[in-house]
């Protein structure tokens, strides 16, 4: 099962190494990882998407991550009400004739063209991963030259429903 795990960490050298090394040693597959600074100086946040076999292994990895001295907090937010975003840059083969057509495709996705050259253009899109996947599929026929994705970043919504019947964000495709 795929899980979204966020870590609040002290911004000290080696902390990313510790986290990924720990996951590697326990044979967890990291699907994506993103790290960046937070509102507090010296504190960073990591968002990991990992594939975990079962609850027991998930609990183990959470505990092991928590044990790291520089890790302040570990949360599995998969089942919470969360905001999830990813950014992707997509370089598509394109001529001047095709540009309008591509425009028409990316517009509903609220994506932007951020670079244009003679035979290609670069599209920038942010959103949930499946939205990005969908756009990539639509652009594929034009010929995709390069894709760069940031991996997920996420946090809890300001309001967490008290009951369990809210629609959870699903990572399954």
């Amino acid at each position, binding site marked *: 099962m795929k899980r979204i795990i966020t870590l609040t*960490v*002290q911004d000290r*050298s*080696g902390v990313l*190494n*510790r986290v990924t*090394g*720990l996951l590697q*040693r326990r044979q967890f597959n990291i699907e994506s990882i993103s790290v960046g600074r937070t509102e507090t100086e010296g504190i960073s946040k990591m968002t990991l998407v990992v594939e975990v076999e079962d609850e*027991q292994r998930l*609990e*183990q990895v959470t*505990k*092991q991550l*928590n*044990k*790291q*001295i*520089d*890790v*302040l907090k570990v949360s599995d937010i998969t089942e919470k009400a969360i905001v999830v975003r990813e950014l992707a840059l997509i370089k598509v083969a394109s001529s001047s004739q095709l540009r309008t057509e591509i425009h028409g495709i990316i517009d509903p996705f609220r994506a932007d063209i951020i670079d244009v050259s003679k035979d290609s253009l670069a599209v920038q899109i942010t959103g949930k991963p499946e939205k990005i996947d969908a756009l990539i599929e639509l652009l594929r026929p034009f010929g995709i030259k390069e894709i760069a994705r940031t991996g997920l970043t996420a946090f809890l919504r300001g309001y967490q429903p008290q009951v369990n019947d809210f629609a959870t964000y699903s990572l399954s495709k």
Partner: protein
Amino acid sequence: MKVEAKLEFQTSTVPKTGADLLIDLLINEGVETLFGYPGGAVLPIYDAIYRARGRIQHVLFRHEQGMIHAAEGYARIKGKPGVVIATSGPGATNLVTGITDAMMDSLPLVVFTGQVARSVIGTDAFQEADVMAITTPITKHNYQVQSIADLPRIVKEAFHIASTGRPGPVLVDIPKDISAGNLTEDPKEAVIDLPGYQPTIKPNPFQIKKLADSLSKAKKPVILAGAGVLHAKASAELTAFAEKHKIPVVTTLLGLGTFPADSPHALGMGGMHGTYAANMALYESDLLINLGARFDDRLTGNLKHFAPHAKVAHIDIDPAEIGKNVPTQIPIVGDAKEALLQLSEETAAMDDLEHQAWLEKLEQYKQEYPLWFKHDPNGMCPQWLIQAIHKVTNGEAIVATDVGQHQMWTAQFYTFNKPHRWITSGGLGTMGFGFPAAIGAQMAAPESTVVAIVGDGGFQMTLQELSVIYERNLPVKIIIVNNGALGMVRQWQELMYGNRISESILHTQPDFVKLAESYSIRGYKIDNQEDLIAKLPEIFAYNGPVLVDCRVLQQEKVFPMIAPGKGLHEMIGVKPV
């Protein structure tokens, strides 16, 4: 948590170097002994050690592996971190085995490694190794010092992390330009700033209640006592609790001595070479209380058959241990002593637990299936040798072993009635550990009798430290259980690999007596029982180091045994074969 601590400098002579500051900080931490080996990247530190003569002692070992095992033995007996200094590159990489060993057995170490100057880090400079990356998975935490101003905080944090919660090794990598750099002012305070590190000491009272409640209903309770009891210094509490409620106690290999082996409620060691009674108690129990043990696979055997009928309560200061190997119904995070005190209070009114039938059954197992060995009139039995050492030392010695058959025989036949007498490499099973660990123990407890019981194989991995016991006149008694083989390997080859004895016979041996003499140490060679009985008192009465080459029966095996993949109830060699 934040702790502010004033530094008391004995010499306030600005300018001085980062290395001088480091030594001041160590003295400030109460460090008396450094286990070290010099080299280019730590020359500034050694210069500072020279200047600090008389304020701190440094012991020069002959190999970094030897000194770090010595620091482990020291930590085990002293209950304080062993402090190690090694140079960059090869000095640091020679520590890897010892650091891993300390990590596995939760021993507090603070390890300082030199590093090349910051300006050349990452350039494959002479004697550069990426020590931070190498030691990340084998330390509780590690640091690379980036500024002299950080030294006070880092040293304070390193000692704090190494010795609190679940103890472990902490490494501090110091670039040469930091140790050689000049201080511009005396740092006056060190602030520990570790918001992510708050070990839980006091257990949750609700969980303790749950355990007390389960205990009142249990028909077959058993306590499994591990090294966590030692770290918490909770042996007295454990003994009082188990004896009051007549709860039988199994100890792990590292937990030997936490509960008196001669108590009627002691079942001895559990696991691969444990007693039948201990393993059957684990197997048949309906309430298993794990106190500071980590359910190592050498203890549990095949997990499918581990305590299959038991409700499991696990008390551990490291939450990540709970549920790691064995599903746990009553998880209790906390210090073993705190937990026992709370539990004793909670169960104070419970006088007679109804498990008489259980005690009788276990007593029957103990009587019917004791540990055994057969005397051979033509040679010396290793088990008998261990008993003879027990006798001559009154069971009071600090005993360090290496790894192999002799280790298991010592665990089985040197009955440990008190804690802090037993030093062995349990988790990593490190050959070469025993002798240097005994040196560290002797340094921690100069008045105690310290015996190193080692195999002829493992001793040859770190015997160069004979220099140290001579130089320091440390009266360590080295007993080589010499079977001319890598005995434990040979045992497995005999039993599990169709008797194909592949590369486990030591066809040539040094003359150990001459070897000892070449280091100016007394040596004895003994190959029969009478001789041993005659010489042992003299060996132990002598106030100096002694090496005894004991020629024992080569074919002797460690029994009983749980073969790999088998369950606790499937022991072999329970009865004399």
